[in-house]
Structure formats: C-alpha cells, structure tokens
C-alpha cells in the first residue's frame, strides 16, 4: 500500500535540530501567552495528551503488538519500543515501587532540551511536560489510567531527567446502552 511507498523517502523523519528548535519556539510562545509556569505546564500536558491519543494508534499500527500482560511489560515496551521509535533513545526503567505500580524512566539525554537553558524565574516550568501528556494520553487509550510527572530534570541542575509513572486503575470497556 501507499505506506511502503512513503517509506522510501520517509517523509515522517525531520531534522532533529529543527524538531528541537520548533519545540523551543512552542514553549517560548506559551510562556509569552500565559506568563505563569503552572499554566504553561498545564497547556503542554493538554497538548501532549491530544497527541498521545492519536499517537497510540500509529504506534499500534507500526509495532503490531498485542496487549501487555502486566505493567512491567508496559514499562519495557514504552522504554524500548516507543521511545526508540519516536525519539530515538532508550530510557532506563528503574525505581519500581514495592507494589509494582510505579516506576521511573531515566533519560540520560533529552532531545527536546538540547539547546535549552532555563532563564531564572522559571523554576516551576517543566519544559518537557509535553512528554507526560503524550504518555498519559496514549496509555489511557489502552485502558490504563496513569499519572505521569517529572521528578528530576537536567534543566534544573539534576544529573538526570526522571519521569515518574504511577498506575491508577484499569479502565473498562464501555458497556453498551440498554436495549429499549
């Protein structure tokens, strides 16, 4: 089908620097528009969520993968397949909680923040908060209610970027409306 035809030149790939700079421009514009870091975080999360909801279908189509058996498998798939596919890096999965419902993704490098320095006065800004939204939206579409947040960020002087995912509950299929 046309899918294969497209792959030859692969129009889905863009220059990494262009991507980074475009994202930077987006965040800068949001900061101008909202002037409040909390609001910017919220907007980024919302934008990410809307992306994730669609991205998951593309992911399922490309990875051609069945349902995961448990949250650990999900974590592996996110780190080794999804991050690799869309950002070209493989974060480390670690810091599992005892109950196995919470883990962290550790990113050594983050393509979104490559040329970025946070100016002072933006201590509350989660620059890459879009990623949290994407993860939340995508997982929600495969019946998982998950909280995603940044714990550490190299932009704020931490050694590593850490995204924490917490599994809340499984969402059930919609029950059809009663026959009338």
């Amino acid at each position, binding site marked *: *089908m*046309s*899918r294969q035809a497209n792959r030859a030149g692969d129009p889905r790939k863009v220059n990494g620097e262009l991507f980074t700079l475009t994202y930077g421009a987006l965040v800068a514009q949001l900061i101008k528009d909202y002037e409040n870091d909390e609001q910017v975080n919220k907007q980024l999360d919302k934008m990410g969520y809307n992306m994730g*909801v*669609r991205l*998951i*279908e*593309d992911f*399922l*189509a*490309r990875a*051609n*993968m*069945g*349902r995961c058996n448990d949250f650990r498998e999900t974590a592996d798939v996110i780190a080794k397949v999804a991050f690799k596919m869309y950002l070209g890096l493989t974060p480390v999965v670690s810091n599992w909680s005892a109950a196995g419902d919470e883990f962290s993704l550790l990113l050594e490098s983050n393509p979104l923040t490559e040329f970025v320095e946070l100016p002072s006065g933006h201590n509350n800004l989660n620059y890459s908060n879009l990623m949290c939204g994407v993860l939340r939206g995508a997982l929600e*579409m*495969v*019946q998982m209610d998950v909280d995603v947040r940044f714990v550490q960020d190299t932009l704020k002087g931490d050694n590593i970027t850490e995204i924490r995912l917490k599994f809340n509950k499984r969402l059930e*299929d*919609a*029950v*059809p*409306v009663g*026959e009338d």
Partner: protein
Amino acid sequence: MTIFTFYLFDRNGTCLYYAEWNRKKQLTMSKDEEFKLMYGMLFSIKSFASRLSPTDMKEGFLNFTTSKYKLHFFETPSGLKLILNTDLSVGNMKDVLQQIFSSIYVEYVVKNPLCQLDQPITSELFKYKLDEYVKSLSAFQTSKTAS
C-alpha cells in the same frame, strides 16, 4: 467468494463507519438500530468467550459462522473494533482487518487532524481507499466464482 459488509466501532460503541458491497437483502430496522445490536452482540460474545475460556486469553473471539455468512472480528488494544462480513468460503481475515487498521484507518483518519476520532468518519479519502482495498482482495471476486 464475496464480502458483504464492513463495520468500524470505536471504544465507546459509536459506529464510526459502515460500508456494504453485495448486500442484497435490506433489513427492516434502521441502520442505527443495527449498529447498536451489532455492538451489543459483540460485547456480549466477547465477554462470554473470555469467561468460558479455560486459560487467560489475549485475543478471544475471532469469527463466527452461520449457514449463510461468516463474521470476522478484530479488535486493537486501543479498543477499536473492525468487523467484516463475508460468505462462507473466505478464510482467515485477521490480516486483512489489521491491514485496514494500520494502513487505512491510521493513515487517513488518525493522521488527519480534521477527523474527530469519536465521530463517524466522513472523509472521502478514507472511504475511497477502503473501497479500493476491499475490492482488490481475492476474497472479493464474485463474478468469477459465482456459479
């Protein structure tokens, strides 16, 4: 061999798309009612099949056959349901449904920002591509095998 109808349901049970080819007999009930019945039936048969299964199963219900037609069912992990009704001589259509999902639905609906994912699909391009794909299938060829 031939293909009769195609249904696409989202995770909430909304019928996103319906298409028919060679469907000779029209039903007396409205289309909306038919969609509702279809979704309700699939929902029940799915939970029935998984309850009856001796082991945990990943993909339960695949198809069923009556004396007149065969219903093929495919569900993505995101809860999208694709249904194809064919005649009895058609084999496994799972790959076909998977293909419709990954190279038609994802390409022309998910990647089209104008398409709302929870509303019935109105995209002409999707309609055209689906029709073209289904008609190109070997399972679709009617005239040659019709006796």
